């Protein structure tokens, strides 16, 4: 059926065309590299398009008391000090330039009254910090980057799935995959490869992520011998839609709370007052009245001494609060809680949150200007990921780089809203430049191993075998049910042990998965290889979660409810040893005194 794969050599191959992949590709091309950009979907459809609330950067347009130092401190505090401090520093320092650069490339952000880029408040940020376009910031960013990449003449391979990385001697030197529109195999040879494939949400039942987020990059890196870190830290966004069933998990932007949205349980109680962490209590309003003053000042576009409302606590905390309210019987009719912004003028709500207005009206028959939404936690973001060098995005495997959600370290144990869009700009650029420099230092035409290509082609053919086997959809459902029920917001030793056992069972069944039909645009066939990736990352999440016997950020252990100083000095580490997954830990990178002082000085 299928002959010799097409072969496409490049200096730098970027896998994934969301914000990080596009920004890396642009940086590599501007540094003079010949760049290829591969994406599973059409260009411009990557999940960055779903980012809503904004991109965090201390531009100081909305409040001139802000600074990179404050942004750094907020990020570290939000990440429960598990962040790589150098990454958090570079991120806070460079984010403003990266946002301004987007504007210079044609992005049109919402404006302040004096005509500068407007910034909105978000959970865990000390000041209004998120540059935005209504609640469709991700679309604006991806379109701006897409246009820039097209203008730079970057070669884009759309609807192409990478299933294998190819190694030669001690380096990663290529990638193997297939065209989704034909099923034909394809080989890329490259002097440097950047993984920018995003997250793992699809391993869970309730998720804000699309079908694409199946842990591809984490699994490819793991299989190629690179290290993963902190995989237990999965962010459950507090507010996803809970009804109707078809959209369960779909994101409700934090901007609703940023603009003043109030969370209430079925009794009408503003329950977040009860869940504020004691050591940060003084950062939040003391009363409903102070919280209202804060919202009024925000609407009027002026600075205020009022402190922020309790709904703007960090995501890990709000998600646990909502989960607990529902679990204890104080939830809304469809198993969530109420989020209300309807007390603001209808015109303001429609202008500030246009896509939320449409989303609820079109999909749930709810008018958010007239009444509350029902919301509940949804699997949203992977804080952990491939271990990278802060300056360059280099992984622990030669020739392989990673940027964006697929990389670990930047966000520690919990990511602040808005820090993901700035992360992908800052580290997308750094990684693209470093990959181009790496490629420039390699003078040979990259070699790819014909034996590995032959084996990869056999892997592609295997699911069409005539012997009976499991349907990939069933296996996927079992995987999602396992992760949802046993590796969710609250975890225990017994549940994690059970999950690891079930995952091993699924893993054993995976080689005998069988599909029908042909290779042309066959989603069932594509799911087989994504399942392999999801099984790897799911095991990494469960094993790392079992190892970390404490509660920190997004990782909550019922059997170890306290934060542990000893674990606070360690990253979890996952690597492949033979056919086995090895889970260990390594000391956190040290933090220079000047950075440490930024966190301790209040």
């Amino acid at each position: 059926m299928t002959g010799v794969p097409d072969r496409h050599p490049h200096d730098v191959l970027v896998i994934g065309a969301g914000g990080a992949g596009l920004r890396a590709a642009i940086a590599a091309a501007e540094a003079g590299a010949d760049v290829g950009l591969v994406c599973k979907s059409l260009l411009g459809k990557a999940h960055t398009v779903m980012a809503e609330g904004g991109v965090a950067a201390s531009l100081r347009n909305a409040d001139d008391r802000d600074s990179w130092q404050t942004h750094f401190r907020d990020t570290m505090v939000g990440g429960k000090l598990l962040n790589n401090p150098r990454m958090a520093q570079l991120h806070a320092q460079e984010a403003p330039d990266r946002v301004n650069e987007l504007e210079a490339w044609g992005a049109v952000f919402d404006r302040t009254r004096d005509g500068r880029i407007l910034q909105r408040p978000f959970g865990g940020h000390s000041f209004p910090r998120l540059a935005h376009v209504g609640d469709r910031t991700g679309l604006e960013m991806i379109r701006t980057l897409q246009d820039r990449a097209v203008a730079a003449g970057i070669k884009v391979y759309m609807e192409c799935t990478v299933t294998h990385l190819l190694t030669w001697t001690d380096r990663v030197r290529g990638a193997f995959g297939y065209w989704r529109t034909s099923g034909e195999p394809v080989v890329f040879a490259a002097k440097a490869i950047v993984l920018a494939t995003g997250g793992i949400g699809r391993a869970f039942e309730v998720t804000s992520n699309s079908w694409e987020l199946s842990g591809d990059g984490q699994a490819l890196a793991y299989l190629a011998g690179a290290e993963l870190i902190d995989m237990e830290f999965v962010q459950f966004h507090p507010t996803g839609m809970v009804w109707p069933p078809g959209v369960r998990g779909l994101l409700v932007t934090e901007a609703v709370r940023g603009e003043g949205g109030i969370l209430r349980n079925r009794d009408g109680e503003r329950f977040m007052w009860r869940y504020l962490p004691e050591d940060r209590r003084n950062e939040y309003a003391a009363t409903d009245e102070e919280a209202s003053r804060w919202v009024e000042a925000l609407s009027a576009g002026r600075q205020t001494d009022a402190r922020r409302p309790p709904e703007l606590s960090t995501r890990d905390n709000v998600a646990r609060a909502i989960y607990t309210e529902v679990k204890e019987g104080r939830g809304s009719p469809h198993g969530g809680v109420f989020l209300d912004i309807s007390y603001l003028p209808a015109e303001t709500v429609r202008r500030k949150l246009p896509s939320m207005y449409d989303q609820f009206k079109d999909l749930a028959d709810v008018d958010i200007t007239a009444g509350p939404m029902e919301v509940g936690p949804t699997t949203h973001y992977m804080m952990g990921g491939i271990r990278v060098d802060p300056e360059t995005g280099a992984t622990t495997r030669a020739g392989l780089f990673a940027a964006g959600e697929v990389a670990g370290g930047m966000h520690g144990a919990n990511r602040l809203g808005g820090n993901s869009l700035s992360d992908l700009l800052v580290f997308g650029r750094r990684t693209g430049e470093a990959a181009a420099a790496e490629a420039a230092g390699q003078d040979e035409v990259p070699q790819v191993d014909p034996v590995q290509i032959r084996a990869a082609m056999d892997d592609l053919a295997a699911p069409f075998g005539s012997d009976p086997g499991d349907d990939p959809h069933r296996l996927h459902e079992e995987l999602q049910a396992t992760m949802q029920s046993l590796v969710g917001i609250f975890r225990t030793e017994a549940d994690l042990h059970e999950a690891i056992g079930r995952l091993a069972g699924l893993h054993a069944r995976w080689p005998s998965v069988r599909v029908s039909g042909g290779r042309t645009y066959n989603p069932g066939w594509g799911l087989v290889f994504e399942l392999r990736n999801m099984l790897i990352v799911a095991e990494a999440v469960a094993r790392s979660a079992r190892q970390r016997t404490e509660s920190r950020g997004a990782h909550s252990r019922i059997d170890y409810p306290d934060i542990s100083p000893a674990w606070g000095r360690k990253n979890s580490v996952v690597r492949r040893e033979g056919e086995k997954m090895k889970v260990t830990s390594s000391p956190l990178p040290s933090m220079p005194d000047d950075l440490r002082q930024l966190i301790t000085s209040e």
Partner: protein
Amino acid sequence: MPLVHLNVFRGTPQTEGGYVGYDVPVEEGMVVLDALHWIQANEAPDLAVRWNCKAAKCGSCGCEINGKPSLACKTRMSDFGPDEAITVEPLRTFPLVRDLVTDVSWNYEVNKRITPFTPPTDGDQADWRWQQEDIERVQEFRKCIECFLCQDVCHVLRNHETDRPFVGPRFLVRTAGLEMHPIDQADRTADLKDGGVGYCNITKCCTEVCPEHIRITDNAIIPLKERVADRYYDPIQIAWRKIRGGRSGTGGGSRAGESLPVLPGGSSTGSPPSDGAGS
């Protein structure tokens, strides 16, 4: 749960395509894309449908539902009568790949030919001040999610009414967003003329199908048509420019030498037989 009958087009360019019926259990709030996913998970794991966000934000799942170009993720099953069969077909304007997936790559080729954003080379970005009311029109155009429903419904493209290039509503919207950007310096008037803005005869079908409610015809296409008319067909304007020595009308020209691709013509084998949409 009540069952709803879906007729889904199945086929490839190489095979005789046809409609396959599926009875899908419907629950409250379900959309057509949910029904297609149910078919994939239970009846036809190889059913080809393009989708991503399931929230009308990415524009991947465009198809024709009972003859109307629509996003499958935004079309509620409850929009149809209890005994009404629902027919789902691929976008007819583009070549078929398989089932509900079409080859939309022509759009990406056209996009490459548009003169990109061109900011001023002098001045300091820190001094840029744009008022919100001055950028709202541009933001309207930048809401476009590139679902290509407007391209699909546009009769000039759909019926291959011209063998000369016509970029279609999507790229007139993109051009309008660039032309009306507060600081863009390029002049795309010549490109618009070459891109066939004159072929649009303002039937507004594109505006009707736009899931982002962009007023494509009124706000983007008509103002662009006026620019071209002023430049090329208004004798007073032409004379005035000669006296003033204004812009030459050769356009931004950064893409000069690359000709615009024409949409591949004719319906190919395997396409759905009837045509209910378009004008």
